[in-house]
């Protein structure tokens, strides 16, 4: 059977669209190589003028609880907390705290919504705004 030309065009366009829509490769998914790591780091990181790591971690945990998360893991030595929020969706977040110089702590948060990394700046801004209120300290952007 001879396929009419219009039909062939449609086939071609559909094929092309699936190509565009296609998902990332395993390597891209594993190492998130599509993302600009510098940009991500800056939207996920803030510094605070304190050196009390334990208190900062406790405040991070309290803030996560305020936001409806249940803690999955916490490690004072490594300075990290992982938590999950279930609210029809699943949102998982890891927050790490480490020293920056002699007088500051660096707090980094990264979130995963369902099965994709969160790279919008806005949710992180909300998180750090909640955290700085609980810390009674300003969250400073880091270059």
């Amino acid at each position, binding site marked *: 059977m001879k396929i009419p030309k219009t039909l062939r065009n449609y086939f071609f366009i559909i094929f092309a669209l699936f190509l565009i829509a296609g998902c990332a490769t395993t390597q891209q998914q594993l190492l998130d190589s599509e993302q600009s790591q510098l940009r991500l780091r800056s939207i996920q990181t803030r510094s605070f003028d304190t050196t009390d790591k334990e208190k900062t971690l406790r405040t991070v945990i309290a803030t996560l609880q305020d936001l*409806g998360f249940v803690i999955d893991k916490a490690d004072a030595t490594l300075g990290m907390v992982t938590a*999950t929020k*279930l609210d*029809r969706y699943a949102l998982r977040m890891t927050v790490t705290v480490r020293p920056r110089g002699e007088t500051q702590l660096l707090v980094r948060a990264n979130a995963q919504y369902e099965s994709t990394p969160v790279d919008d700046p806005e949710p992180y801004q909300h998180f750090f705004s909640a955290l700085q209120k609980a810390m009674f300290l300003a969250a400073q952007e880091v270059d």
Partner: protein
Amino acid sequence: MPHVSERQKTIFLNLQYLFLLALSFAFVGCHPRIPLEALRLDTESLKQRQIQTRVFQTDDEAKVLTACAALLQDTGFNIDESETKLGVIVGSKDRSAVSTGQVVGSVFVALLTGIPVPWDKNQKMRACVITKPIGEEKRNIAVRVTFQRIVWNTEGKVTRREGLTDPKIYQEFFEKLSKSLFLEAQESL
């Protein structure tokens, strides 16, 4: 225009649908977006904090944490994770999620339509207890507990993912905790 048979017309129409479908895939891609309010504090968060928190007049955090761990065990939870330096205990348990009403409803619909309707079967319930010394001289310990659950139906699909917010759950938990600590739980300082 050359002669087009009915058959070719239907193929052509179907292709248009497929085209629209592919177009929508292109827009959706692989990225479901996070709701922008997901990490925003609101008045509801503060209300939940009150419901989920009690303050105990003691400065012995280890004692409170031990009592919490024991209480989680008493209520059937297995401890998954703990970090005493940060006042963290996390537990979970697997339970049945079958409710008679839902099963009756499913069977009724299945009888009417001939299509089997799945019902909720299992659930995983998680709890985390966080203790925190509060006050100027750290003379009080605040305890906050939060619960959540995931429910699977008879086909093994997730049907519910939610935080548990019923205040009665928290009342009962803290009543039990007060008893085991021999201390009066206070709503706040």
